């Protein structure tokens, strides 16, 4: 029993952190046109094998587990990384066809997330993605998007484009079961934890230097106590994320409950931390040039993926837990 990342896990996390901070720094989002994963970043990520982290070895992947998957996407979250990175990694796992899989893993094909919306579908990610990935708790399917009728929509969150899809083509590939959904939950929960941590780091640093009434704002209790509450929620979400990812790695009987709980807690922590981060920055916090709104908008986007609050909480209610 050990619930803190260690050894190889830490090495992977550190390597990911370093790479993502240079390839996808959050400040890219202050320049227009940087939504989604561009071709160059996709090739770089592919080259380093990040899309194949949790893909089994016999399918050309690294054969790592939900734990490494979580560690990687937490770093993506810290830089407000686009969700098409998650789509790309999950899509490769859905493929039975080696050609499409290899194309996704090597970055010559690309994926975006699809979510049902009325009788249409919402597309999150690049409208020029070759594939759309639709994941539900029951199954995952991959759709070729070349012929799809895509209507671009304005996006609140600059990290990802939004579009609506009319007449989604029949799936090119599909897989039954909840495996991809769970990895999507873990990946998006990890991104939320990364966002919460980034928000907490930003405000703690600012609170040490910004002065009012002759004192650092970090010495005012309204600020200190809000930061402490952010820290508690973030710590709770992180601990449950590690638990859930490890439960999934070990295929424990109660893993689904822990994954649902992890996603729920991560949503709550990210929404609260990114909100308080803006508030405690004062006026500068609402400016376009600051990172604070980027974190908040991305947290809002991620909280809409892989299970609504209502869905997660109602499932949790009756879930049995193991020791």
């Amino acid at each position, binding site marked *: *029993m050990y*619930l803190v990342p*260690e050894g190889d896990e830490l090495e992977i996390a550190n390597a990911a952190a370093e790479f993502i901070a240079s390839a996808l720094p959050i400040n890219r989002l202050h320049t227009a046109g940087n939504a989604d994963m561009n071709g160059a970043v996709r090739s770089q990520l592919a080259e380093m094998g990040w899309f194949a982290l949790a893909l089994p070895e016999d399918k050309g992947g690294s054969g790592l587990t939900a734990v490494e998957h979580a560690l990687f996407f937490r770093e993506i979250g810290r830089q407000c990384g686009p969700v098409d990175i998650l789509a790309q990694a999950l899509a490769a796992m859905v493929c039975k066809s080696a050609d499409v899989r290899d194309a996704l893993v090597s970055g010559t094909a690309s994926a975006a997330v699809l979510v049902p919306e009325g009788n249409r579908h919402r597309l999150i990610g690049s409208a020029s993605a070759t594939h759309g990935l639709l994941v539900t708790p029951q199954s995952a399917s991959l759709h070729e998007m070349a012929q799809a009728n895509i209507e671009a929509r304005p996006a609140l969150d600059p990290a990802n484009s939004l579009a609506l899809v009319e007449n989604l083509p029949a799936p090119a590939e599909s897989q039954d079961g909840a495996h991809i959904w769970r990895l999507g939950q873990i990946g998006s929960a990890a991104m939320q934890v990364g966002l919460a941590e980034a928000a907490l780091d930003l405000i703690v640093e600012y609170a040490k230097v910004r002065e009012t009434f002759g004192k650092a704002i970090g010495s005012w*209790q309204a600020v200190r106590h809000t930061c402490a509450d952010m820290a508690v929620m973030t710590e709770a979400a992180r601990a449950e994320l590690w*638990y859930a990812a490890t439960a999934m790695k070990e295929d424990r009987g109660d893993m689904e*409950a822990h994954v649902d*709980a992890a996603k*729920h807690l991560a949503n709550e922590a990210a929404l609260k931390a990114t909100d308080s981060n803006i508030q405690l920055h004062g006026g500068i916090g609402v400016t376009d040039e600051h990172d604070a709104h980027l974190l908040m908008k991305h947290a809002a986007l991620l909280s809409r993926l892989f299970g609504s609050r209502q869905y997660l909480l109602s499932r949790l209610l009756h879930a049995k837990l193991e020791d």
Partner: protein
Amino acid sequence: MDLRYSDQDREFRARARQWLQANIPQERRPASGKAASQFDRDWQKKLHDHGWAGVAWPKEYGGHGLSGLQQVIWYEELSRAHAPAQHVSTTYVALMHAGPTLMARGTKDQKTFHLPRILSGEALWCQGFSEPNAGSDLAALKTKGTVDGDHIVVNGAKTWTTDAMHADFMELLVRTDPASERHKGLTWMICDMKTPGIDIKPIRTMLMDDHVNTVFFDDVRVPLANVVGEVNKGWSTAMATLSFERGLGFIADQLELLEKVGRAIELAGELRLADGRLAIEDDEIARRLGSIKADTMAIRAMTLADIAETDRTGIPGPKGSMMKLMVTTTHKALSQLVGDMLGWGFMEFDGDRASNPWTHDYLWSWVFSIAGGTNEIQREITADHVLKLPRSR
């Protein structure tokens, strides 16, 4: 990371479960008075006689030297078996912080005399830190200790002293250097509660009980041999005590929460609301329950992460204050929610925890968030020591 238990862990859990099933007291714990403390002593003695006392205490001090993880397993099995609640037990101070303080800072004689008595339930302890004008600001304390030969003579008053009337000994913190200020000049000592000059006055609380007290000291002579740590260096010993109290002090309660959430969910499937629906059919109640369950799962994950880390490094992390915040707020949310479900049943209360544990829990939620350092102070500690923000004081 891994969540696997070793064979020894599994075997330990099975053995604990089996023993507890057969040995949990069948009679209710009396609500108050000597009968209550006798019940606690008897239960502790039974645990001790059957080899279940001091699971994680070192063997040299009469414990079993098991790992922190096995201690977690033990507490989980206690709550699963509906064993007498830890937080209301009069053995709490002795087991959770007096014993550990003596292990860390006591002399050989102090350990030899006291530790076996604590484990067997023979000696109950209370904590004499807070005063009328020194609570959050503990370093403002004024109770005076004057060295006189081989004794320290104590004059003054302690307050909020839980279970003082039941205790055999007190963790007594006094100012021995009259010229000193704040943290300097304090001394931590073991005070025998039978010493002449001690007068205990109960304080009636909103829980309809008298479990806290004001304790008056009139020329109370405490042998110098009872000083733990050094004379005038008691602040350091007191910080050790508080680190035990705030570190693992809540472990039983934090692990019991999952069990309580399970009971609340069962209850929601049985209770009818005023409009005739089952409580669980109400969306708001269902969501609150789900969200509290998630918080409770996180508390368990935080506990396991902390324990595993401490088992490996030997050093407890700085996160006890964050844990206390998380546990106390979740505990309050749960008892409030059950209160909403119970309707008028929640309003019937005569002070006896056994007859209405949910209402008692609700009232206790303020004890949790005030005693042992208020939640505001826990936020201060988190801001200082975890986030390293500039000091507010």
